[in-house]
């Protein structure tokens, strides 16, 4: 038992030496995650700061002008053209000069004053559904505000139902707030899965793996000796990303670090288990790399990073169950933003344990039984 422990420690020491010896490879373990985190933080956002639009004011009344000045006063809507006919908007939309056409229909002022339905038409560029959806939302809420305000000024009763939305945990509804905590899992999974799979494949290619198999190491020892160094690297990377989230993007941390780190450790074990499994299938580094990419892409798409998994077709929802990243994103978001308790995270954690408990023994078995 003690001898076995010493052998595992020897392997871990060797692995860390190989990974960390070269200053270039040391830097390549920490800088890319931070860089990716910054890029994602700034680039991957659904928030719109400017909405280029074209105006077709068919009413030309004082009220319609007031509405437009309110729209443009928000600083978000920037008029790219003032048109006489709706048809003229087509070319602007086609060339993606604008994302929205706002048409104030005839009789707008009169209808509004009479209490009847006053019409404002929004024409959006459906090719980019995300952006136009957000733009429409902005326009809707400004127009609704305007209506309420206008009616109260005129001494008219407010509309029957008023919907007030407030979003918890992320009051400004900033994409960044949900994106960055999810990156902790996403980026570390990319890096550690590759690192693990490549390190085993390199040893196979260079013949050192045979040397390990001939030595008194058991497959389990080799597996642990490969997994733990990758986990250490993963934890350091995750911490680096967390620091960027806390101090650069200043996203407030609501939960417990202990819960988060327990979750991260389990997640890394599951991700590395996958890396080991893929490496046991690969004969060389090229194959290991291709296999990693083959799995990483679906893992990211089916993780809930970009779109919620609940909206996916049922078959795909089952597929997401073996995806460690899904649980990692669930844990990091809930612990980071909602301050979720340890017990609430248990189902996710158990799922991660199951994934690791399946992939790791299989890969250990494959180390020796893989037929060449």
């Amino acid at each position, binding site marked *: 038992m003690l001898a076995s422990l010493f*052998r595992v420690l020897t392997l871990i020491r060797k692995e860390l030496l*190989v990974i960390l010896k070269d200053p270039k490879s040391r830097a390549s373990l920490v800088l890319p995650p931070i860089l990716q985190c910054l890029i994602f933080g700034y680039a991957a956002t659904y928030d719109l700061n400017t909405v280029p639009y074209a105006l077709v004011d068919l009413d030309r009344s004082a009220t319609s002008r007031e509405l437009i000045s309110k729209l443009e006063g928000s600083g978000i809507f920037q008029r790219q053209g003032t048109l006489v006919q709706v048809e003229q908007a087509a070319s602007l939309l086609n060339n993606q000069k604008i994302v929205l056409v706002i048409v104030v229909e005839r009789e707008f002022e009169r209808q509004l004053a009479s209490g009847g339905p006053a019409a404002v038409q929004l024409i959006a560029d459906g090719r980019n559904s995300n952006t136009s959806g957000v733009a429409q939302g902005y326009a809707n809420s400004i127009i609704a505000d305007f209506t309420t305000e206008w009616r109260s000024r005129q001494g008219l009763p407010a509309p029957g139902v008023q919907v007030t939305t407030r979003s918890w945990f992320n009051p400004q509804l900033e994409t960044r707030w949900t994106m960055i905590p999810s990156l902790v899992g996403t980026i570390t999974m990319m890096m550690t899965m590759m690192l693990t799979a490549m390190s085993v494949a390199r040893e196979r290619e260079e*013949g*050192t793996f*045979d*040397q390990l198999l001939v030595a*008194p190491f058991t497959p389990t020892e080799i597996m642990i000796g490969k997994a733990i160094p990758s986990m250490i690297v993963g934890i350091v990377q995750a911490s680096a990303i967390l620091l960027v989230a806390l101090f650069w993007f200043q996203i407030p941390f609501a939960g417990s670090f202990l819960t988060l780190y327990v979750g991260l450790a389990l997640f890394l074990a599951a991700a590395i288990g996958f890396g080991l499994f893929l490496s046991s299938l690969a004969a060389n580094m090229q194959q290991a790399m291709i296999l990693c990419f083959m799995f990483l892409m679906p893992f990211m798409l089916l993780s809930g990073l970009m779109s919620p998994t609940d909206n996916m077709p049922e078959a795909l929802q089952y597929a997401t169950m073996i995806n460690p990243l899904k649980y990692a994103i669930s844990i990091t978001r809930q612990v980071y933003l909602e301050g979720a308790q340890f017990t609430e995270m248990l189902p996710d954690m158990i799922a991660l344990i199951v994934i690791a408990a399946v992939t790791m023994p299989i890969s250990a078995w494959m180390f020796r*039984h893989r037929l060449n």
Partner: protein
Amino acid sequence: MSASEMALVAKDVRKTFTRNTGERIEALAGISLQVRSGTLTALVGPDGAGKTTLLRLASGLVLPDSGSLEVIGKDVASHPQDVQNRISYMPQRFGLYEDLSVQENLDLYADLHDVTRERRQEVYPRLFEMTQLGRFKDRPAGKLSGGMKQKLGLACTLVRSPKLLLLDEPTVGVDPLSRRELWEIVFKLVREEKLSVIVSTSYLDEAERCERAVLMHAGQVLDEGKPDEITARAEGCCFLVSDLNGASARSLQARIFSLPGIADAVPEAGRVRVVSKSATQELSVELDGVRLQAEAVKPRFEDAFMILFDRIMSDQRRAADPLGSNQTSNGTETVIEVRDLVRTFGDFTAVDHVSFDVRRGEVYGLLGPNGAGKSTTFKMLCGLLPATGGTLKVAGANLLTAGAKARQKLGYVAQKFSLYGQLTIDENLEFFASAYGLRGNDKKDRIRTLKQQLELDQFSGLPSGQLPGGFKQRLALAAALLHRPEILFLDEATSGADPLARRQFWGRITALSESGVTIIVTTHFMEEAEYCDRIIILDAGKNLAEGTPVDIRALAETNDDAAPTMDQAFIAIVEKERGKRKETAG
């Protein structure tokens, strides 16, 4: 003689490289050399003599620091393209595309050199006939044996009839049969097409068959001339000691080798061939007060080579300290037992019912052409590959399923360097010592001792991937010996090593076996089989012959060839068996 008759003229050529560590290495130290057109010239010398550098300079890949180098009448430094258009260079590791077929590789090189369609139609059939690769046109190059790969490489360099062919160690890792075939191609090219060929080699029997041999050392020419002339320098120095007083040829050879006045001693057919430093009427060798009887024999090229090198080398090579622990060898206990071993890959049988035993303290050799099943057998013995059928026991256990304890007893040196290239000598040794459970002072002592014995103290800080070839091989041996293994597996350990390094290596192996370590080797060098107590010859997965080197030679003895060399014996046995198989098939 006009310059145009010269394929290569070097005048005081110098070339220095700087290692990553800042160390400067003088690869060529003012070399002057003339090679006549239409001849076959061999460059021989130990590793680091500058053979490869000279070939690379001649091909215009690197430029000399000073001096002038003319190839086919053109100065290489000022007209590299002109020269490159008229020569072909085949480096040690020729760039074949492993996933492309034989034909595709050939087409690719023809395309690269703008060989016309008509010319291809004329050249291809000739190349295929010469290399006998016609049957394998569609096979991916990666699936060819080592010998066939080299032949394909040669064919690729010949798609555009060059004026001068430069070959860098073309037969490293190639078995004697393929080696002979490869040389036949080269001889034919020189004879029929008047091609000039310069070939570097570490096989001295190959150099012996060339028209001229150039012996290089430390970037200079040590001697040059017809191989016969060089061989003649050993006239009167060569003897055969046949009465061994009961000692094995191997251990006697090691003791004679370390005596003063002796340039070389190698085992040969159960006897010891001794080369004295200077010509003498009668060899006087005394061991333990007993005078050994020796008869004078005709010198060989290798003997002259060893005498020449003995003069310039210091005595460092003789330091053959015992490496092993002092276990007593008893020689009767069976430590490796192989019965009816079978291994198939799909419908291909790589190992076909092979059986043999190895006793404690024996040096046992696995010989055979490329693809004979040596490596497969080796892998199964080491527990790296499951057997399809049969039983095998190494130190009483099957290593595939046995626990750590059984594997603790064996040391393994792989064919290609397989330690951690990024780590230094010390870090590698430290890792393998800990892997085998050495700790504390014992670990420190073992590492220190082995570093000292294998002369690994220099280069301590260099990543081991950047070590010179000989050092890598010694480091691999050191790593395998740290835990005092009972059984040592050596897979092609001397492939690509020069004659001097090979003697040093076998000196160590002899010392190890004397201390009771059982040693299993695979090798391509048939003269190395002489160091083995017993050898087994495999071909196409089958056991062709097993026995002592003397037995094996006796198998190949014919009336007209009374004393075949090991090489000839091997070829004869394999060809006889192949002939038989063809008969039964036809």
